[in-house]
């Protein structure tokens, strides 16, 4: 039996949401699962093709309304992330960055012209977006960013570097966050909608990754990138701009990481029933059973937390520290589950024949991006102690 069904979590979902989830699952199993191990091994992920397929399905920006977006519940979006990440975290990263970071930034903070120009094409997967916040020297503390937007008449001129930017090299549009205050005041941070064919913009790809290999990660180089006044996101001022977007994506990861864990666990349960050691199935040994039981328990607990956050989000009141609880738990436990499953698979677990080590490697990135596990601990602890250990 599927581990995620021991406590019948499906009964907590709206039938419409389940239908969308099932559609994503069968689509992913059909279109992406067969090729993913190869993409991972070669480090060549056909982003454009995948984006068009996902756009055709309706996943890109699915929880947004208008502009060709499906307008689903947050819960349905979470479930879609879960199914995507059950195939590969890279696939889910593509959807997170497109829908929750790039599209969401425009949808939430953009002008009517920016929305009408970009969102429908992005929803269809014809235009790919990236989200440039992190810099080489500023990851957990983006408020210190050095990328600077200088006013020149009505224009803006951007200079600086962004690092670790998912889909940077394949993007048609980059949402770039830059400082506009010469004093480096966090309130001076603004977002810019940068067409990637603008002069002075380049995005070299980062090679030699050992994690998220079925995903494109890049550096963004902004060298005197001149933009019209209309390129700024009018609604966003200060760090609240990018952080609001990150919270959208983090919500998807709360569900997504559990998808990777589920795939590991399902694979491992199947394997342990078939693999004979010392003359009988590995699944029948108490040590294996204890591992499988504990991992199943963590997955179920993770699902309950995710569902609760989904209820809060659809109710309109999800707080950052609540998202931190889910992001921390799902990524940390999914990684533990992936590693635990790997031990049960023995040597077979280190090959690409099984998805387990691929998931484990991917989850190292998922643990770190969108706020490291430590930063989420700090956010939770700030909420319960009233003391901020960081600012």
């Amino acid at each position, binding site marked *: 039996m599927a581990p995620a069904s021991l406590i019948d979590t499906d009964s907590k979902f709206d039938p*419409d949401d389940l239908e969308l989830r099932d*559609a994503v699952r069968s689509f992913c199993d*059909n279109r992406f699962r067969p090729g993913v191990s190869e993409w991972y091994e070669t480090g060549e992920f056909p982003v454009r093709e995948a984006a068009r397929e996902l756009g055709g399905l309706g996943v890109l920006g699915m929880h947004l309304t208008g502009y060709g977006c499906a307008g689903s519940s947050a819960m349905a979006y979470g479930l879609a992330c879960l199914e995507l990440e059950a195939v590969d975290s890279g696939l889910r990263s593509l959807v997170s960055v497109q829908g929750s970071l790039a599209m969401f930034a425009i949808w939430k903070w953009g002008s009517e012209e920016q929305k009408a120009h970009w969102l429908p094409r992005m929803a269809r997967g014809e235009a790919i977006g990236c989200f440039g916040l992190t810099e080489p020297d500023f990851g957990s503390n983006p408020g210190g960013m050095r990328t600077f937007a200088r006013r020149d008449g009505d224009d803006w001129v951007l200079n600086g570097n962004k690092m670790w930017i998912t889909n940077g090299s394949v993007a048609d549009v980059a949402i770039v966050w830059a400082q506009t205050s010469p004093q480096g005041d966090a309130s001076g941070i603004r977002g810019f909608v940068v067409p990637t064919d603008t002069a002075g913009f380049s995005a070299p790809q980062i090679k030699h990754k050992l994690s998220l290999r079925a995903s494109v990660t890049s550096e963004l180089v902004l060298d005197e990138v001149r933009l019209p006044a209309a390129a700024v996101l009018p609604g966003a001022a200060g760090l609240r701009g990018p952080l609001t977007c990150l919270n959208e994506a983090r919500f998807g990861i709360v569900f997504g990481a559990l998808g990777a864990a589920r795939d590991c666990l399902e694979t491992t349960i199947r394997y342990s029933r078939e693999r004979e050691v010392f003359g009988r199935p590995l699944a029948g040994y108490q040590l294996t059973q204890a591992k499988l039981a504990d991992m199943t328990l963590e997955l179920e607990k993770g699902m309950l937390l995710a569902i609760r956050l989904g209820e809060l989000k659809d109710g309109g009141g999800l707080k950052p520290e609540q998202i931190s609880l889910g992001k921390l738990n799902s990524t940390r436990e999914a990684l533990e589950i992936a590693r635990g499953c790997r031990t049960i698979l023995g040597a077979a677990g280190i090959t690409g024949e099984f998805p387990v080590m691929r998931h484990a490697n991917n989850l190292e990135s998922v643990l770190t991006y969108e706020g490291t596990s430590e930063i989420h601990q700090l956010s939770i602890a700030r909420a319960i102690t009233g003391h901020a250990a960081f600012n």
Partner: protein
Amino acid sequence: MKIITLVKQVPDTWSERRLDPETGRVDRAVSEAVIDEISERAIEAALALKDADKSTTVTLLTMGPAGALDALRKGLSMGADDAVHIRDDALQGADVTITSRVIAAALLRRPWDLVIAGNESTDGRGGVLPAMLAERLGVASATGLDSFELTGGAAGGDLVGRRSADGVDEVLRLGFPSVVSITERMPDARFPNFRGILGAKKKPVEVLTAADLGLTDLHPAVSVVSVAERPPRQAGTRIIDDGSAAAALADFFASRRLI
């Protein structure tokens, strides 16, 4: 062009399937009911025509229990416009003479140019329903098509179909209205997208009983007398080749009168 696609819900081929020994009918409790794959292809064929000409309408029609609505919803989420669900407890276990009468009566209630069906369902496998419908309605039919296309656009054209059997490739031409059935060689069905799935709930489904169709005296032409399950397979004989295998094999074949 107005197209009606026939849809059937069947027990999932990938799960256990069984007949109820009492009634001789499909035991619906043991397996999940799904839309027949060949029905999905038939819907795909209709939707491909709709893609090429937006004025085309695609109506799905099924005869089946309440749960068959799921099969219709699947087709509506793929992009069909509306559906007709013939649903009547009295029709349980209907044979193909009854089914063809009922569906023909339903088809007479609305205008259409083309009926597309699968060549045979994965459960009943009669394969004669499309031809029987055409006969009852007095229209042309071409069955078992591997591909087809419309010539001369929506108005006044023909349908040209291709099929192959026993080493012969046939090309058939027929006018409208007509009934065609298609094979597994037709393209795979498209995936429904979110817009389709969410929109399918709002599409109209007309529910009809046999009485609504003016049919009361429905009697099967054939009735199932008995159904017996095949005895479970015996364990095979293992021949180990220690030099005598050839003789043992020959003896085995001879015992079955195969040589």
